[in-house]
């Protein structure tokens, strides 16, 4: 109830603030009276009946539970009151708006207006709603009338949610939620601020005030019915405004969210659904990226299967790394002794020239190149790739540097050779001759033809290997 009061107060206040031409008498009467009426009307059918009865009886804040056969009468009376409140001349204008808004608000984004109507009408509890169309129309007119600033839609929205609310509970929730969301969405869409219209309906001049009061009241009863949306709406009138702002920021998504949220009935504040939608799009985008990355996943569709594939792929890669590391542990000791020395000595060099990547590779490649040079001189192009790293580093340096490096390598190699390093012996035997030979060979080929690209060389090495 406090929520209702809050809403009512806020709406009343807004109405008072916003409506320059508000008739003093009417708002007072309407805010209180109509609020109560509308609050009650928004309730379940029983409540509606009770509200009507209370409307008829007295503008008491708490509608006594007095459902009865007088519903139709009460409703008619209510309609009459509304009609009196609303100006006649404005009724004609809103009706098309009403329909259009109806279509725009409900059919397009929500596809539910017929549902609403159907839900309402077949409901036996809503027998008195036989007057609904007229009632709704008039209410719509009133609401539209009330929303001067462009809240022509507001009325409809207002009416519809109300009607929806008058319907089943889910309908109510939908309606209330819809109303709320509609307001937000409409605002987001750039329409005449449905929510604002609803609020303006509340806050607008007297006639509108009635509508606004209706809105507020409607919202309150919806809350009373336990629709959290309403309560949430009341709590976060500001929150809803924020949502509206968000929706304004992203109208197209608001539309979708609106549809989605409406279907969900969840409080699902529009901001959340909006963010969720954005998030979902991001996720699908990333999934596509991953699909390209994971080999053999182009035909896979669906997040779950794709996710499994990704997980399998990552697991596979990790297992490969582990297996290869074990393999390297067995193979390594024989070969990589030079590396450290090379790296140490080459660090200065490569720092000078900034050729970082190939540096450590080149001693390794030197061995490879030496092998290949010795065996297959015609394989120079391939070897040259390996040698390229070797050479490329030498590029900025004169040959003597390289040879110096190589020769510097040899003593430690020889030392290692003593430790039963086959490669060390190999180095000892062939390195000077082979490497120098290869070096001379490659120098002409490589220096001239190939440009130094550290990463390229590495990749080439990998490719070649």
């Amino acid at each position: 109830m406090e929520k209702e009061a809050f809403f009512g107060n806020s709406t009343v206040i807004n109405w008072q603030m916003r409506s320059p031409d508000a008739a003093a008498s009417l708002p007072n009467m309407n805010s209180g009276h109509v609020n109560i009426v509308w609050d009650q009307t928004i309730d379940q059918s029983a409540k509606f009946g009770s509200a009507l009865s209370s409307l008829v009886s007295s503008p008491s804040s708490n509608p006594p539970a007095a459902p009865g056969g007088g519903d139709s009468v009460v409703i008619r009376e209510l309609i009459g009151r509304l009609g009196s409140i609303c100006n006649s001349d404005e009724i004609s204008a809103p009706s098309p708006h009403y329909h259009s808004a109806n279509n725009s608000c409900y059919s397009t984004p929500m596809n539910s207006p017929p549902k609403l109507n159907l839900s309402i009408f077949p409901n036996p509890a809503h027998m008195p709603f036989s007057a609904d169309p007229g009632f709704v129309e008039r209410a719509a007119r009133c609401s539209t009338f009330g929303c001067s600033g462009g809240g022509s839609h507001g009325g409809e929205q207002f009416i519809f949610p109300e009607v929806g609310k008058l319907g089943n509970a889910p309908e109510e929730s939908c309606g209330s939620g819809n109303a709320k969301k509609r307001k937000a969405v409409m605002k987001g869409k750039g329409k005449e601020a449905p929510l604002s219209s609803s609020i303006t309906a509340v806050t607008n001049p007297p006639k509108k005030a009635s509508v606004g009061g209706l809105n507020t009241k409607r919202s309150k009863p919806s809350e009373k019915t336990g629709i959290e949306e309403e309560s949430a709406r009341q709590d976060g009138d500001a929150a809803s405004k924020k949502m509206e702002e968000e929706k304004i920021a992203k109208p197209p998504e608001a539309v979708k969210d609106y549809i989605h949220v409406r279907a969900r009935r969840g409080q699902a504040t529009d901001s959340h659904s909006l963010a969720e939608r954005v998030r979902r799009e991001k996720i699908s985008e990333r999934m596509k990226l991953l699909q390209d990355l994971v080999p053999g996943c182009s035909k896979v569709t669906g997040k779950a299967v794709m996710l499994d594939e990704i997980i399998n792929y990552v697991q596979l890669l990790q297992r490969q790394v582990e297996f290869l590391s074990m393999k390297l542990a067995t193979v390594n000791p024989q070969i990589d002794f030079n590396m450290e020395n090379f790296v140490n000595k080459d660090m200065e060099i490569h720092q000078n020239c900034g050729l970082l990547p190939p540096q450590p590779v080149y001693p390794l490649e030197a061995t490879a190149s030496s092998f290949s040079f010795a065996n297959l001189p015609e394989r120079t192009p391939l070897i040259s790739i390996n040698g390229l790293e070797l050479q490329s580093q030498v590029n900025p340096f004169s040959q003597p540097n390289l040879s110096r490096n190589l020769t510097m390598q040899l003593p430690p190699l020889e030392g290692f050779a003593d430790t039963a390093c086959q490669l060390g012996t190999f180095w000892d035997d062939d390195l000077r001759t082979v490497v120098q030979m290869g070096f001379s060979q490659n120098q002409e080929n490589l220096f001239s033809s190939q440009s130094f690209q550290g990463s390229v060389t590495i990749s080439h090495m990998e490719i070649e290997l």
Partner: protein
Amino acid sequence: MQTYHFLRSLTHINLTRPSSPLHRRSRAIRRAAYVSMARAASPRRMWTRAILGRLQLLRRARLLRRRRNYKKKTTISTPHDKLRRLVPGGEEMDFCRLLEETADYAEFLSKQVRIMRSVVDFMEAECRKKEEKV
């Protein structure tokens, strides 16, 4: 870049303790692989930070004989738990970010695998040739 780091650490491992047992060396090599991956990748990535953080933690744990228990406190039960466990640092990310990190991580992982495989092949080739020679 990745190759450089990896080869460097590989040589370091082989130089410092060539006689250590196989499993320990393989573990060290595996760790070196991941670290080289992380060093080569951008530090903006969560997984690189996670790997490097794990490295630091491991070092400190060695000193303090403490395993990384506190890191597992945040348990967000999601349907993507498996992936989260696979990707380092994936525990505290939202799914969207997780996918991004996974893509990056998988890319570097595949590169690392290629590097290691090429090194292994190269070594094996050399050994074979040496045996042939001898």
